[in-house]
Every structure is written in C-alpha cells, then in structure tokens.
C-alpha cells in the first residue's frame, strides 16, 4: 500500500540524507587530507594537492610508536571487559536466582554507582592507587573501569529474573553444582544481554579520556585518545600527524561497526528496552 506521508515527512527524509552524507563526507575529507604533507594542507587547504602519500602514517607507526598506545588501549579494553562481564553476570545471577534477606537493598546498593560522577571519586581513587603504587600502571584504569558494574548488573538481573525456574531445577537434578549450572547453562543463555552490555560498555572504555588522563603518566602507558591530544595540542606543527592518528584510531573501528551494524544497533536497542 502506498502511504501518503505528507510534505513534512519528505522534508525530513531529505534532511536525513544531507545529515548522513555530511557525516561520511567529513570522514572522507579527514582520510583524504591525512595523505597530504603538512605545509601543503596548511597553505593550500582547498587547492590541488602537491602530492599524496602515507608519510604521516609511516612516522606515526615507526617513530611515534602508535601501536604501543594502541595495545595499551586494547589491553585495558579486553581485560576490563572480561572482568566486568564476569563480575556483573555472577552478581546479577546471585541476586536474581536466590532469595535472601535485604534483597531489595542489595539491588539499590548496586545502582548507587550510576548516580555518582566519576569525578567525585577520583581523588580517593588516586590516593588509593598511589598507596599501592599503581599510578602510571594500566592496572589502575583496568580495575576502576571493571568496577563500573551498576548498569550491567541491573540489566542482567532483569534478564535472569525472567528465566523460568525449571531450567535451573533440571540442571541441579542432573547433579550439576551451582557454578557448573551458572557457567554451562545460565551464562550461555544470557549471551544476547551480555552482548549488548559488551557493546555499550566497550565503547565507553575504549574512548575514555578522564581516567587515563589522571592515572597514566608516562608515554609508554598512555592510550590512543591521549596520543591524539598530544598532537592536536599544537596543530600548526602537528596537523598532519593529528589527521593520521585520527584516521588510524577511528576508521578501523567504524568499518567494524558498519560490518556488524545490525547486531550492534539491535544490541543497544535491546539494552534500552530491557534495561
């Protein structure tokens, strides 16, 4: 059936095309200019490029150790994510599966973290990390990131509560212990929710700026977002490097996103609806 949607709908469709195409055009513009030498870009921004080449990338990777920063980011992300998922799913399962005194209070307790801005706790956290000599160590950022379990616990608790009791009972009847039941049966069942928790938290951990800024001091421990600010802090000298590092830290992730976009957007929506 052909629906008549009206002029306004048509207008907004055009607006969406412009908005979407502009977003991609901006990214392409970034990629294109990252291939130009610095002086050519600065003095002749909109003219015909003198030459195109990957010299900025070469310098970024060989001299400026891009991959060291990249691996720091990767280590922080993977370890934090594994810990966070493990802790939050075990906790959520514990809350949802068993009946125990003060259950409501425990649920609220785990939500507290959501209403406190990380800035509030950063002074005590810094003093704590300083005491155990973890300042300027990836572990400090990893530990703090993986303790942000408020929202994951909430979402996973809701999920586990809705599971029929029979699944658990038949597993126990077959002689499986509590942990076996959890890891072999319950955790796999929760994988869609775990997926959407992974998506929402990993973006945050990967792009986080505040915690690494405060806890990671030496260049060998810094993450990609910090490397970006090192260049963008002095654009006249480093505009070429800024573009190269922006492209290298952004485009691969965007390509991954575009490939898996259906699943990712679905995951975020699920999280929004269920959480």
């Amino acid at each position, binding site marked *: 059936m052909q629906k008549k949607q009206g002029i306004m709908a048509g207008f907004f469709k055009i607006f969406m095309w412009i908005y979407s195409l502009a*977003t991609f055009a901006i990214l392409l513009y970034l990629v294109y200019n990252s291939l130009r030498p610095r002086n050519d870009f600065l003095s002749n921004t909109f003219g015909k490029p003198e030459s195109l080449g990957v010299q900025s990338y070469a310098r970024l990777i060989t001299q400026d150790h891009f991959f060291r920063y990249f691996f720091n980011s990767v280590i922080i992300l993977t370890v934090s994510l594994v810990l966070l998922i493990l802790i939050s799913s075990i906790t959520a399962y514990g*809350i949802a599966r068993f009946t125990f005194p003060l259950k409501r209070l425990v649920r609220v307790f785990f939500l507290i973290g959501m209403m406190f*801005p990380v800035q509030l*706790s950063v002074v005590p956290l810094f003093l704590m990390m300083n005491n155990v000599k973890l300042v300027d160590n990836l572990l400090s950022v990893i530990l703090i990131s993986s303790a942000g379990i408020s929202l994951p616990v909430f979402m996973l608790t809701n999920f586990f509560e809705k599971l029929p009791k029979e699944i658990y009972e038949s597993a126990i009847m077959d002689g499986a212990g*509590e942990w076996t039941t959890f890891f072999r049966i319950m955790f796999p069942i929760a994988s869609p929710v775990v997926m959407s928790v992974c998506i929402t938290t990993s973006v945050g951990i990967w792009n986080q700026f505040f915690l690494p800024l405060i806890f990671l001091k030496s260049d060998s421990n810094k993450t990609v977002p910090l490397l970006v600010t090192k260049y963008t802090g002095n654009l006249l000298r480093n505009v070429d490097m800024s*573009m190269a590092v922006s492209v290298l830290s952004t485009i691969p992730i965007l390509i991954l996103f575009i490939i898996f976009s259906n699943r990712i*957007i679905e995951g975020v929506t699920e999280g*929004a609806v269920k959480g």
Partner: protein
Amino acid sequence: MRKFFNKNPYLMFLLPGIIVYSVFVVYPILSAGYISFFQWNGYGPKEYVGLQNYKDLFTNSNLMSQLGNALKNCLTIFFLSVIIMMPIQIIMAYTIHSKARGSSFFQVAVFSPQFISTPVIVFIFTLLFDGSFGIVNKVLRETGFGNLARPWMGIPEYGIYVIWFMMTWAGMGVGMVYFIGAMKMISGEMIESAYVDGAGFWKRLWYIVIPQIKGTIFNLILTSYIISMTIFDFNYILGGSGGGISGSVDTLALMFYRTAFGENSPLGGKVSVNAMGMGTTIACVLFLMVFVVAICQIVLMFRTKKED
C-alpha cells in the same frame, strides 16, 4: 568455610561483586565526602574544618563566580540538548521507524560518531570551523557570505555552543536508537488507523507517537541532565583545565579538576594548600546536584520494570 557457602550459596555469587564494587565505587564516594570536611593539600597533615570548605565555596566571591559561571555553562548545554537535540532525535527516529528508503544507512551514519573518541571529534570540528583552514569559512566566502566568516573555535562567546554542537554530533545516534526502540513497541494498527484518518506528519507524531514514548523521553531528559552536569572531556580538550578564555567553556567537573589537581597538569603545577579539601567539596556539591535527578531515574527504572 565450605559449609557456610553451601548453606548460603547466594553469598558465593554476591561476594566478588560486592567486594570489587565497594572498594572501587562505594568507598571512594564516602571517602570524598569525608575529605571535604578537611583542609588538606593531598600529602601533608589533614586539618578538620567542619563545614568551612562549603562556607568558603559559597561565600568567597572568586569561587562563587567560577561556580556560577560553570553551572550556567552546564545548564546551557542541558537546555540546548532538550530543546533542540531531542526533537531532532525523535524526528529522525520517526523517519527511520516509518521505513523511509535508506533507513539502515541513516541509522549507521547517525550512530557512527558514537565510536569516535572525544579528542578526534574536537579535531574534526577544528578542521571544519577553524579560522584559516576550516571548511565552513571557505564555503561562506565562496557563496558570498564572506563577512560572516570568523575563527569559530576561538571566540569565547561561541565556546559553549561549539561544545554543545560537538556533543550533539557525537551523541545523536544513541538517543535516536533508544527512540526507535520505543517506537517499535507502538502497535502498528494505531499508526495505520491514523493514516486512514488522514492525520498529517505532525499530528501522527504529536498525538500517536509522542504519548507512547513519554517514558523514554523523560528518561533521556534525566540522562542528558546528568551528562551535562558532569561533562569534562570536550571542555578540557578545547579549553584546557582553565576552561577556555575567561572561563567560556568552564564546567563544574573542570573546576573540580583544576582545584584538586592544579591548573597546569595533573598533580603538577600550582596546587593550593587546600587542593584536595576544596576539590572534594566541589565534587560533593556537583554530586548533590546530580543526586536528586538520579534518584528520579532509578525510581523510573524500577517502575518500568514492574510494568513488564
């Protein structure tokens, strides 16, 4: 030990979470509240001063004007987000929901900036809005509006709007996807019958869609308040810890950072005798402003859960 856990299996599952969460989330919060009652520079001896830090913050004219200015900037971002960004998100979500051609492309394009880290977003905006090599000025000059060209990123009066614009581009997709999720819950029949009745675009949106996604709208308004009050990254990258020229992009979180860790670098530069005391005091005031709204949100979360 073993017997105890066998008797109370729930503790076995709860303990790891409770320990990690208490050490890294709950303890620091309580500790920050505690430190705010002391005069302390972070390493020397602490001196108990009671509520003096709070009194100072609200009576010292310098601190007060910083606080007022930062609060004004945070609220500006909040209001712009609710008044401009949210309606755009709803309309975008509705356009995608009504299966316009190119919907999945729109969804990917609008959501993409979510994956770009803040420093890169600030840099991309510099490429667009810079005074000398920015595209916007180039376009203005080419189209005969050359007198409007200016160094957009460098003018203090524009600072907070530039920040808002960057945040909006980066965050547009998340809210939109949430709205799409909410719209999927509306029964197709309702929209169908509205078409039959010949309701126009605005009528369908206002009388049928909006009432059905009220909960999501309310929830996102609260979220956007919390984000606006605690915003740090964009402002720090654009304006440094000083909050830009004459505090044009200053925020509460930046003021806290500057007070606690000094103006120049984290734990370097000039740190006052009461850096940690006053820093945590500002953090606690910030928290109180977020707290009230956060409580509403948590109540809302539990309520929507019950309705399932």
